[in-house]
């Protein structure tokens, strides 16, 4: 094919109204994004906020630079691809080097903010009895009485006052020395005050000398229990003087005590090390990985063999009812996979399913599809065979038709048997044609989460596995359990590390495929 070398289009269209429209569009977009990423970052979502900003810079460049004109045609697709495909990949890589998961769910800033909220009552601190008042706008005030019976008025952010009746809006005192009214405020009954959730959060009095409600009977002058020492990245306990140093996402004291909450922290290659070396995980993970490969391999072998056999059997163009047979045989492929997997689950039900009832009647025995490790594996392969042999039948019959009759004519002259013709002509030529699709199918099955998850959720469980794992779990369903099952130890970090490992496996297989199918060369030819 000759290559057209003229730069195309010859000139980028440009006009004043067009330019103005683009500038106006960018102005609106940039303002919106500025607000959006500011909100993201103020919530602590730095990676997401940064990604949004980078994407926006990209959009601006594409729309302003003349040379980027062709990219304007795909800017929406590119944005969506970066945001929903590339960003999650990058994020996954980052998470795989952290301990994100149970006990480490917030950022360090959020954890510090929470820890700094903890207060303690210093030995010299004053404690009071309190009565609460609330204004119509929802502002609060406290009337405090110390042990000597002196009354004080405390409002958030204002210094403590010691007013007599009539001063600062304080009305008449009742027999306990508590004002019946404070101007602008309504006195709360003891019950109302005790159940008001806002009240205990509020710091009364001026900064540095704050008073907070500790219990229904006591308000006290509290100080922050911890002070953050940013230089040593440690929390210092003001009461005991112990310092808690940041140790892999938890502030930890020398004696091993830790402060809650923990936070997300980089932990290097620990997750990957665990995958390969952790003695507790090794057993289950080895089984899961081995079955993952076995499942993908045997699925491909069985499904392809049956599909090919059918394609060869009905390859003749004038075979009677060919069209009808084909339509009926592809029916499994037309039903959404989720539905057929669930139907098979019902049909294979050990007591009630049709297959087991029939086998019990005829043979007095039926396979325990869901409780025995090996029968569960066979069941999965069987269901997968049903689901996907039509696909292989279709691609094989397509490929068979493209093999020239001349080869067979020549082979017949040479006296080759039917088997020899199949073995030395059909199969090699067919494999060249459908090879890439076979590799793609292998990688698809390697991550065939739906089948495993819907059929038996990876069961039966592997006894003694430290995290939930089953005998038919493949890596991706194991990852799903780690991240979403929520029953035992959510661990996004470890889940992401396994994800990266899966990616390398699948990526290696795909590169192998590209290498041997000359896909790149085909692309280059079409330049």
């Amino acid at each position, binding site marked *: 094919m000759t290559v057209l070398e003229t*730069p195309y*289009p*010859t000139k980028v*269209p440009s006009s004043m109204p067009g330019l103005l429209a683009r500038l106006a569009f960018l102005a609106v977009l940039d303002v919106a994004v500025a607000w*959006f990423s500011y909100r*993201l970052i103020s*919530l602590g979502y730095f990676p997401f906020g940064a990604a949004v900003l980078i994407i926006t810079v990209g959009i601006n460049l594409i729309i302003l630079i003349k*040379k980027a*004109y*062709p*990219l304007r*045609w*795909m800017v*929406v*697709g590119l944005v*969506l*691809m970066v*945001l*929903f*495909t590339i*960003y999650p*990949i990058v*994020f*996954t890589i980052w998470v795989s080097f952290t301990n994100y998961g149970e006990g480490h769910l917030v950022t360090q800033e959020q954890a510090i903010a929470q820890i700094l909220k903890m207060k303690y009552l210093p030995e010299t601190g004053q404690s009071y009895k309190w009565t609460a008042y609330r204004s119509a706008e929802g502002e609060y005030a406290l009337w405090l009485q110390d042990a000597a019976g002196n009354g004080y008025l405390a409002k958030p952010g204002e210094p403590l006052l010691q007013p007599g009746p009539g001063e600062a809006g304080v009305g008449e005192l009742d027999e306990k020395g508590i004002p019946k009214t404070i101007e602008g405020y309504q006195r709360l009954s003891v019950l109302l005050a005790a159940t008001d959730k806002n009240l205990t959060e509020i710091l009364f009095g001026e900064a540095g000398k704050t008073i907070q409600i500790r219990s229904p009977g006591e308000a006290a002058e509290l100080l922050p229990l911890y002070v953050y020492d940013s230089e040593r990245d440690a929390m210092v306990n003001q009461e005991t003087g112990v310092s808690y140093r940041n140790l892999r996402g938890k502030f930890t004291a020398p004696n091993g005590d830790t402060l809650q909450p923990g936070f997300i922290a980089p932990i290097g290659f620990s997750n990957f090390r665990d995958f390969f070396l952790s003695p507790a995980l090794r057993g289950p993970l080895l089984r899961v990985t081995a079955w993952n490969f076995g499942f993908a391999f045997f699925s491909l072998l069985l499904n392809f063999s049956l599909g090919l056999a059918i394609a060869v059997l009905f390859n003749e163009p004038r075979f009677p*009812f060919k069209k009808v*047979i*084909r339509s*009926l*045989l*592809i*029916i*499994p*492929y*037309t*039903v*959404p996979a*989720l539905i057929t997997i*669930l139907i098979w689950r*019902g049909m294979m039900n050990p007591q009630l399913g049709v297959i087991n009832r029939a086998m019990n009647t005829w043979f007095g025995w039926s396979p325990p599809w869901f409780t025995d490790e090996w029968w569960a594996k066979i069941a999965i392969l069987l269901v997968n065979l*049903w689901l996907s042999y039509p696909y292989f039948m*279709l*691609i094989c019959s397509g490929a068979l038709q493209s093999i020239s009759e001349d080869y067979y004519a020549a082979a017949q002259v040479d006296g080759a048997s039917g088997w020899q013709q199949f073995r030395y002509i059909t199969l090699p030529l067919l494999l060249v044609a459908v090879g*890439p699709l076979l590799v793609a199918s292998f*990688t698809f099955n390697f*991550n065939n*989460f739906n089948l495993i998850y819907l059929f038996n959720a990876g069961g039966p469980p592997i006894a003694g596995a430290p995290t939930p794992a089953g005998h038919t779990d493949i890596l*991706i369903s194991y*990852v*799903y359990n780690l*991240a979403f099952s929520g029953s035992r130890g959510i661990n*996004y970090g470890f*889940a992401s590390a396994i994800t990266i490992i*899966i*990616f390398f496996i*699948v*990526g290696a297989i*795909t590169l192998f495929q590209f290498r041997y199918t000359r*896909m790149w060369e085909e692309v280059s030819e*079409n*330049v």
Partner: protein
Amino acid sequence: MSSLSSVRQAQNSARLRRNFDIAIRLLIAAILIAFSIFPVLWMISASFNPTGSLATQTLIPPNAGLDNYQKLLTSREFPFWTWMWNSIKISSLTSVLSLTITTIAAYAFSRFRFRGRITMLKGIMLINVFPALLALVATFLMISQLGDVLPAFGLNTHASLILVYLGGAMGINIWLMKGYMDTIPRDIDESAMIEGASDWQIFSRLILPLLRPILIVIAIINYIGTYGEFVLARVLLKSTDQYTLMVGLQIFAGAQFQQRWGVFAAGALLGALPIMIIYLLLQDQIIGGLTQGAVKG
């Protein structure tokens, strides 16, 4: 004479052998067909079985009736029509929007020459090697963060699900579409260009109508893929009235599966029918697309 009769005899025996051969193959076909349609027949039969339980089902149910359908369509707990509508809405929008993005981008790849073109095409293919499923955790966290700022695009919204699906629009289908466009001769657009047509006019008036066959194939394959997608929808959608049909059916099958078998079968059948009909009517086109590497979803 004798040679003629022996030829005829040989012809006869060849015909006999061929008929026998075909009969054997038809028999095999019958067995295979039984294997491939039995589960579907079983699903149909279960949906008409009035007792509705897994234990009591036979292939031809006595007193067949529409009880299960009635239960399915009137159940408050399991709003079948809402699920169906959600699925149709999400699949249609995703399919149309994704096709639009794919087509316009493919036009640029096919018709413009710019630096980094090949690299981008290769990059798109490599990125799509990373199965979307693997980034599930990241996608989930990202959507939940997005929802904290823009609740309309957060967890449990159809908008978020559609956006995530559209993230894959710049995928393998671009290759398919670009390949098809490359077969449309350049002369067409060059003559239009000489007459002063803009790129957009050439694309929308000249090229687009010629793409009809491939547009239909990709749209349908996309639609079917989205309709059947389960994992992302399961993770992102949280409340019963937001579920797609696949998520709804899976949840429905989760609890008391054995007692609800009949109702489940009715729902599964109604849910599968549209897709089965599309497939069987357009099997040649769809198969053509699939074997060239078009991807569902």
